């Protein structure tokens, strides 16, 4: 624990950590110093001058170093001027006065200054009602204006900074929170100040404008209504909306969200509401262990799929070859009959049940129960693998990326975190900036490289070997084993022993021709071995199911060998593509090879997955039941389609990649006749002759808690517990209106406070001996013929959950394929063409696909990067690919129009 300092603020004795700022120390004892430019998550700037206070410091006698005493008290020296409490750290014996007449006058003066250039158009401002400037004007500002209204500046009020964020230049008070957020937190400095004085304004200098995955957060931290999101512009007044807690479903981070809803006559985006409840906006909900105060733009804007007019509204049954609407009873009856076939009630042996990570824990559990009861097989729909290892080597309870710093190592393997899990990117980046050693091992340069101490490149296919080399498995494990008894008694000595065993062998496992890379690998391995804490992220960059499985295996062995298991801030974190893939693994569902699994079954029940959309060549079962939100490719082939509720319409729980179980709540009423997934499955089970719980998510969760050991003792009530111990700037008592108003200074949004649950991390099982034993890493199995097509992830893709969002759709861009310039030249593709050349991508056994060539040196030689869910279904690396140039259609047309 850092050194504590004693000081006095407004006659209250305060103890604060050395280096803490006065404004934070005061907040701790309930003294709210007004601020505009300060934000507890950002570097202090001291620009707005709102937080001025009187500061007295004890006079120190230079000769003795002791404080000079005067009348039995230390003599204080107050500065001639007021000082900013947001930039001044606390010091021993300091006396701070925040409520003197001088300070009050200063606040009044600063507010008056700010208002001279403010348009005062609160009636039409989206921030009105949750605006720090409004609140602080009421609390500290002057009652009347001495500034002549017609001498005000008039600036542009409608400046799109990009497709997502709009700027009102008049309202801006030049506090720079947004600029500092983009630069320091997001690492994406695409906006900045331009010009000076009163003309100083926010500009964007990226193409397209404000090109950042984190742009929406600037609207939250903006203390006025200068930055507004295109999603919520003029949507509603803050006091008209209710907040519902939810969890983001787009990746494995499990960001805590709050949906703001209200009843409306006319919906938005063309969806008719006619008096229904609609979601007006999604806001981050503070969870210091998961997403702090931030969410990415996908989480903020992509919820709109739940309101899409193309949602399925009634059950469909195939009649005369056509899917036709039917009642629930008819559909369930028909489905049960089809699934049972010839078998006895309660038995449907050839049934294959597939569920995806989009489903809640409760749904997946019910699916497994159904499959087991019927005697069939349940599979998790996943393109990744290795989830079964996480019960032993996953992130241990108490893991928090925010507590990683010096002495910690973070290893990121096969993942472009910025695209796959933006919030983890942001938090890993910040941990690296705090001093954690970041090792990035990837097949191509990623955005995280610039924060990494060690960047390790491998050829696609060699991921697991590289991870194994990092562990230097055989020798290191031996040494660690040998050091074990000593480790308990003398950790320092053990560390020395490990250190002495420099992993020389590691270097040999990679190509000896690259001495620099090998040396880097050795250094990285050493750093990893010595680290106090180590977290490993593994993703899906260029990996398929089996590849991910072996990478996960190698990572698990590395962690076990270096004994980075079972302690907080240690373990393996999978970067799954869906919110609850971890839940699927925990609840006993496994990723299966669908080709063989579907071949072996005659009937299938597919829930919240689109396998035929991802791979049209999969064998078709004779009877197919699909449960979905949309009429997907798979649903089109179904015999019965059940319309399910979206996550915004029901409750449930997800298990995140960090194995945190978090609960979400219904925000809107269900669409038409849709039912929650668990209820449909349970009813289907009843029709099959099984007894399944399907009355409520809570009842199923209670069952999970009794049957699944990892979830033992968990209840919905425990998931809903909160503590504000880690929250910075949170209201001490959220029920107190005054406190809430002050919390607004930092939050300025209604949805930030987490009063609905922080979630619980699952405990780990004991490490199985098999993992501690080093195993040889499997050799690369990829043949070297042709180009190697590898799947990579792009945040905004053509997925069902992104497309319905009108805002994000415009950011997706066209389908692309990453090509190395040398490969492009060989294929006769012109580099540097604008617009980019269109190429035909030919993969063995896949439909033909055209995409714009991104010719980039950063793409490794001999590799084609194929983005997932952008039109070409590719689930695993595939050799033997080729590309050939295609004349762009528009230029072709232009050419044909010209007279010969």
């Amino acid at each position, binding site marked *: 624990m850092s050194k504590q300092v004693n000081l006095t603020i407004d006659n209250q004795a305060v103890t604060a950590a050395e280096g803490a700022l006065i404004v934070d120390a005061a907040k701790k004892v309930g003294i709210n110093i007004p601020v505009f430019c300060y934000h507890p998550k950002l570097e*202090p*700037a*001291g*620009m*707005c*001058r*709102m937080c*001025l206070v009187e500061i007295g410091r004890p006079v120190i006698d230079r000769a003795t170093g002791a404080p000079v005493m005067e009348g039995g008290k230390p003599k204080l020296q107050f500065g*001639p*001027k*007021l000082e900013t409490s947001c*930039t001044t750290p606390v010091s021993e014996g300091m006396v701070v006065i925040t409520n003197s007449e001088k300070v009050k006058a*200063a606040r009044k*003066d*600063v507010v*008056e*200054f*700010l208002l*001279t*250039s403010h348009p005062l158009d609160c009636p039409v401002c989206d921030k009105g009602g949750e605006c720090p400037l409004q609140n602080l004007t009421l609390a500290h500002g002057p009652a009347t204006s*001495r*500034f*002549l209204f017609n*001498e005000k*500046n008039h600036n542009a009020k409608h400046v799109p900074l990009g497709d997502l964020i709009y700027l009102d230049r008049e309202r801006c*008070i*030049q506090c720079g929170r947004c600029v500092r957020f983009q630069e320091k937190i997001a690492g994406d400095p695409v906006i*900045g*100040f331009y*010009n*000076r*004085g*009163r*003309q*100083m304004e926010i500009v964007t200098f990226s193409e397209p404008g404000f090109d950042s995955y984190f742009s929406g957060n600037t609207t939250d931290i903006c203390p006025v209504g200068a930055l507004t999101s295109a999603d919520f512009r003029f949507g509603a007044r803050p006091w008209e909306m209710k907040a519902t807690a939810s969890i983001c479903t787009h990746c494995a981070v499990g960001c805590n969200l709050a949906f703001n809803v209200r009843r409306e006559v006319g919906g938005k985006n063309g969806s008719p509401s006619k008096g229904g409840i609609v979601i007006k906006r999604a806001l981050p909900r503070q969870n210091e262990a998961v997403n702090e105060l931030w969410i990415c733009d996908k989480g903020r804007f992509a919820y709109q799929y739940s309101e899409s007019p193309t949602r399925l509204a009634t059950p469909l049954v195939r009649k005369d070859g056509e899917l036709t609407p039917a009642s629930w009873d008819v559909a369930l009856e028909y489905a049960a009959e089809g699934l049972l076939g010839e078998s006895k009630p309660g038995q449907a042996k050839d049934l294959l049940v597939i569920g995806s990570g989009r489903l809640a824990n409760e749904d997946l559990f019910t699916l497994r129960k159904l499959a087991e009861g019927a005697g069939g097989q349940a599979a998790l729909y996943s393109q990744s693998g290795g989830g079964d290892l996480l019960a032993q080597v996953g992130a241990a309870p108490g893991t928090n990326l925010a507590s990683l710093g010096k002495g910690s190592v973070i290893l990121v393997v096969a993942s472009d975190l910025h695209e796959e899990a933006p919030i983890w990117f942001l938090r890993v980046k910040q941990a690296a900036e705090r001093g954690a050693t970041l090792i990035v091992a990837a097949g191509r340069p990623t955005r995280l490289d610039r924060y990494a101490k060690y960047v390790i490149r491998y050829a696609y296919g060699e991921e697991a070997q590289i991870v194994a080399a990092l562990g230097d498995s055989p020798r290191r494990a031996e040494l660690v084993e040998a050091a074990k008894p000593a480790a308990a008694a003398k950790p320092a000595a053990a560390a020395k022993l490990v250190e002495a065993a420099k992993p020389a062998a590691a270097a040999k496992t990679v190509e000896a021709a690259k001495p620099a890379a090998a040396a880097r690998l050795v250094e990285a391995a050493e750093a990893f071995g010595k680290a106090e804490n180590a977290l490993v992220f593994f993703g899906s960059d260029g990996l398929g199911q089996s590849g991910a499985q072996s990478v996960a295996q190698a990572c698990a062995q590395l962690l076990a060998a270096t004994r980075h298991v079972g302690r907080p801030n240690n373990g393996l974190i999978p970067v799954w593509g869906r919110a609850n893939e971890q839940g699927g693994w925990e609840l006993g569902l496994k990723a299966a090879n669908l080709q063989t699994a579907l071949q072996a079954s005659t009937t299938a029940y597919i829930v919240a997955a689109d396998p035929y959309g991802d791979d049209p060549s999969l064998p078709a079962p004779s009877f197919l039941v699909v449960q979905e939100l949309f009429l997907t490719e798979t649903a089109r082939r179904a015999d019965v389609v059940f319309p399910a509720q979206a996550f915004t319409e029901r409750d449930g729980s997800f298990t995140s990649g960090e194995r945190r179980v978090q609960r979400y709540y219904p925000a809107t009423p269900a669409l038409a006749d849709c039912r929650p997934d668990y209820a449909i499955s349970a009813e289907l089970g009843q029709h099959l002759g099984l007894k399944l719980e399907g009355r409520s998510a809570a009842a199923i969760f209670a069952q999970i808690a009794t049957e699944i050991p990892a979830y033992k003792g968990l209840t919905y009530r425990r998931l809903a517990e909160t503590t504000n111990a880690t929250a910075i700037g949170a209201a001490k008592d959220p029920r107190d209106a005054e406190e809430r108003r002050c919390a607004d200074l930092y939050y300025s949004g209604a949805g930030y406070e987490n009063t609905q649950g922080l979630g619980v991390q699952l405990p780990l099982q004991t490490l199985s001996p098999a993992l501690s034993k080093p195993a040889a890493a499997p050799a690369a199995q990829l043949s070297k013929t042709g180009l190697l097509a590898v799947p990579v992830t792009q945040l905004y893709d053509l997925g069902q959950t992104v497309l319905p969002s009108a805002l994000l759709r415009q950011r997706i861009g066209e389908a692309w394929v990453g090509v190395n310039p040398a490969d492009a030249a060989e294929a006769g593709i012109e580099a540097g063409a604008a617009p980019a050349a269109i190429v035909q991508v030919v993969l063995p056994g896949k439909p033909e696909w055209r995409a714009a060539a991104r010719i980039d040196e950063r793409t490794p030689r001999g590799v084609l990067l194929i983005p997932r869910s952008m039109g070409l279904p590719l689930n695993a690396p595939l050799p033997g690919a080729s590309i050939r140039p295609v004349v762009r259609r528009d230029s072709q047309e232009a050419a044909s129009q010209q007279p010969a």
Partner: protein
Amino acid sequence: MAEHILLRHRDIPNIDRLEVYRQQGGFEAFQKAVASLTPDAVTDIVKASGLRGRGGAGFPTGMKWSFTDRKNWPHYVVCNADESEPGTFKDREILTGNPFQLLEGVAIASYAVGARVAYIYLRGEFWPIARELDKRIAELEAAGLLGDKLFGTEYSLRIYTHLGAGAYICGEETALLESIEGKLGQPRLRPPFPPAVGLFGKPTVINNTETLANVPLILQRGAEWFRSFGTEKSPGVKIFSLSGCVNRPGNYELPLGTTFRELIMGRGGGIAYGHKIKAIMPAGNSSSLIVATDEALNTPMDYESVPKLGAQLGSASVIVIDDSVDIPWLINKTVHFFRHESCGKCTPCREGTYWMSQLTERIAAGHATAEDVALLKAVAGQIKGKCFCALGEFSIEAVLSGMDRFKDDFEAKVSSYE
């Protein structure tokens, strides 16, 4: 008349040529320092001389050099030649007339703080001077007076010029550093101060052009010689930039402690067109107005005496105002300058200067009431003591002192309207 120390080109023709400068003992001091003195010894000599910063604050130069953080390397030296204060034109004359003395000063300062790279930051409008300086730096490198392994030692030094883009704020030392780093010219939070964390996050010494130009002769002729000029607490000579309503405006190099009367009536040849002196602005636009009484005129110009008149010596750019000048008009001009040059970082300066300019405009035009005058005073008072940097605080010096000391001018404006 005694020989010039800083404006030596006035005594010695062609001293802006390297051979002439070397004939006058140029670069001997630098060579002596590098070859035979330790950096601390050089700093001690400058400390002993009592040289104080000529940029305005008057901070002891040797002290500043000794504050550099010895645990954090490399160090940088930056010469502040962003001479943007209206009424100040002393650095320009040094840069054009006696450039080698400045360059030698920069070199000696760099050696004293262990910097191997030094920057000379010039205001954007000085681009022809920067071009000339670049040529001269190249000459020095060719002559082996700058560059690697100087005078057979391990010490290397490079000097670069850097042009600003026309911003008053970049004369503020931390904004200047931001500007060199390629960022928006806005002052930085202090502490940490530049000698601890400065350019590119490294310890940096920033000195005014005139300050550094003093250094070579201090080393050459000794601290005692330097102390023979000026006063006890403000030793040395100072270039006074005299402008305004005088017969002979220009730069005058005089010992510190010379009286206003000597400068204005003596060297400056008195007030033009038979007018009477009314007020003095001793530090350019950012200074308070001094009522030109006999007592004020007899005050010696040094860092201790001028504050007794309720003003600062600052950069010693003395603007003389005679009785033909309307003080509200003058204040309107100064406030407009500060409004135009406010960087916009902190609220009081950004909004306050704008508000004041609206008011002074009305007052100067004679369209204002007594309430407007009272409001101007209130607004200026609101800015006071709240700004992020000193430049914001300067914006109200003339306003408050002018309204205080020349009440009649304002009352006349108001009553003629009412």
